[in-house]
């Protein structure tokens, strides 16, 4: 429970021919952190370094006191990750099983797992679907399931990489409401929906792998929109 600080010091990420993050330094303590920027600017790379899916080529990263490069297991218990496509993050065939999957390897008795899964599904309005095959859910329900499966693991930080990209307006609102308003966890929200970014406590903007702007979401978004209007 130590601290809710995300720290980057001179972090670069290089792929074979491409530098996806260049010399990023930042210290984040806010609860809701928006990440914006054009396609290919490095947002997903930034997100993936937070749980060790991508390891920095240079520099130091600390997520709630953990170095993701050295302690990948610990960081993945601490950091929940939501991908854009709900289909690619559901692992088990039925709703309840998929939520329970997050609790395996925690050494909990079967009965407790069942109780916690039932409670979590109730919370997310998925109780009626507990035994349904996941492919029978709507995209919105699938993303709710993904969120439910992440939150049951009690992470301290939730990283969501364009979580509403595959959803219609109503489902986007539901997921965003959960992430931004209902959930107590710290949130890193990568999004192209600038209205969601505006509801965060701070916004980061990436361009060409650099952290090119940060601060109050309002002004950061305004400058981003201005730059996009110019050819």
């Amino acid at each position, binding site marked *: 429970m130590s601290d809710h600080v995300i720290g980057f010091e001179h972090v670069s990420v290089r792929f074979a021919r491409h530098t996806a993050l260049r010399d990023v330094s930042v210290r984040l303590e806010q609860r809701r952190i928006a990440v914006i920027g054009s396609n290919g600017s490095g947002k997903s790379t930034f997100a993936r370094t937070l749980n060790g899916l991508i390891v920095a080529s240079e520099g130091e990263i600390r997520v709630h006191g953990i170095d993701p490069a050295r302690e990948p297991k610990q960081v*993945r218990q601490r950091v929940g990750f939501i991908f854009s496509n709900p289909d*690619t*993050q*559901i*692992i088990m065939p039925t709703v309840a099983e998929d939520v329970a999957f997050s609790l395996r390897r925690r050494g909990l008795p079967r009965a407790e797992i069942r109780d916690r899964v039932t409670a979590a599904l109730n919370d997310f309005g998925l109780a009626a679907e507990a035994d349904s095959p996941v492919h029978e859910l709507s995209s919105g329900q699938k993303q709710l399931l993904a969120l439910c499966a992440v939150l049951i693991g009690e992470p301290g930080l939730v990283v969501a990489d364009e979580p509403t990209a595959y959803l219609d307006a109503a489902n986007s609102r539901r997921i965003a409401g959960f992430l931004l308003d209902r959930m107590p966890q710290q949130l890193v929200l990568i999004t192209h929906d600038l209205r969601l970014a505006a509801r965060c406590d701070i916004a980061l903007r990436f361009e060409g792998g650099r952290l090119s702007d940060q601060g109050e979401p309002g002004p950061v978004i305004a400058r981003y929109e201005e730059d996009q209007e110019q050819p």
Partner: protein
Amino acid sequence: MISLYRPGTSLLHRMPAGPKLVVVAGLATAISLLPANPLLLAAVLVAVAGCYLLAGTGIAEAGRQLWRLRWVLLVVSLSQVFFLPVLAVAANVIRVGAVVLVANLITLTTRTDRLIDALERALRPLRKLGVNSDRVALMLSMTITTIPVIAGFAARIREAQRARGVTVSPFAAVVPLLVMALKHADDLADALVARGAD
């Protein structure tokens, strides 16, 4: 075969998955070895119907499944009707239908997780030979999850081909399907890592 499970409290639902698998495997073997005797075949049909009543799904469910099997049964009968006496053909059709119906009783009355647990336990003795039963069970689960996703890809490709007025050839769909499936596998691998598998 996927997502056939019907929740319930019947005797078959309450029976543990392992013994149920053994019993059904035994029944299926017995049925397929059955001589082509009209009385015995009628008895098999009655017994299968009884099993469906016992499972609480009703005989209508058995009918629905036979309907789904109609092409298989048709092929079985057509391929034999010129070479075998009618009774033998009827016996073969009934055997195939009955075995499938009996096997489906497992998926109808057993949740996938229980089934996979049972398989995992059955595989445990193989651990000494280097079989990781945990992994095998996870792989089976993921396969069951993924089949409808891949089926969805196939449907999307077919639609796209039709929309462009391309003649729908199964071969032209193979490459895009493979690409989509590989991309999916790649993304799923990331999710597995992110969700703390291994």
